[in-house]
């Protein structure tokens, strides 16, 4: 059985959506697990991946955890940035697409495309 797409991101989401660019996507903390719990789960799942007979099941779990980790990291970062700028009336934060140099945007776009290829490959 192949992998299913995570429900919290549509398959055709752009890399700006995927990486929670400000100001287009502001999210809360949709997950019950914190970063430490997700990290522990990732470590355990990577260990289980060495057991070949459970590979498909563990691959699915690992990718799901990795996406949750990414979302948690970036949600926390959004909150941090907005918290810092909430203390002033004279400065606003930049849009992510302006703050990040082009060479960083290109890397993020490559990585987003890679994620699509990887999930398709895992489902074969």
């Amino acid at each position, binding site marked *: 059985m192949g992998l299913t797409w995570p429900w919290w991101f549509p398959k055709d989401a752009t890399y700006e959506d995927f*990486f929670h660019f400000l100001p287009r996507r502001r999210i809360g903390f949709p997950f019950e697990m914190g970063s430490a719990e997700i990290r522990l789960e*990732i470590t355990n799942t*990577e260990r289980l*991946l*060495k057991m070949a007979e459970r*590979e498909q099941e*563990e*691959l699915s779990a*690992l*990718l799901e*955890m*990795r*996406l949750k*980790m*990414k979302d948690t*990291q*970036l949600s926390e*970062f959004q909150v*941090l*940035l907005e918290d*810092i*700028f909430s*203390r*002033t*009336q*004279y*400065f*606003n*934060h*930049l849009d*992510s697409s*302006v*703050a*990040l*140099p082009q*060479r*960083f945007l290109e*890397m*993020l776009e*490559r*990585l987003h*495309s*890679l*994620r699509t*290829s*990887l999930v398709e*490959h*895992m489902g074969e």
Partner: protein
Amino acid sequence: MNPSRQRCINSSAIKNRTKDTPDVLNDGRSIVEDLKVSLRDYQVKEQTESAIVQSRAEAAVEFGRVLEDAAVLLAHETLRSHIRTINRDMKEYSEPDSEVLFQIEDHANDAILERLNDRITNLEKYLGVQ
């Protein structure tokens, strides 16, 4: 002020330049300090050498690690960009006749970026992308 470039300082500060100057500069310095402190939480760990990916399991593990490093790098570079921008905003604000005083070329994260791109290239090769 150069109208073409992006800035963090807003119109409220610019309109009241004389009256609010000390407040604006104090706010700016305070934000820069907060941003600098936050940089410590977004350091990309020492990356391992880019290795050839040979299996689905290795690809999934490597992709996850690259994704985590990329998210940290995104945050780190965003913080650095805000620090650069606010410092430049404050310089122009306090010396409005100075035009663009300094062009900051910041390539501190370029080595990490290059390594991430190498790791992405290896994953692309395994997946037959390109």
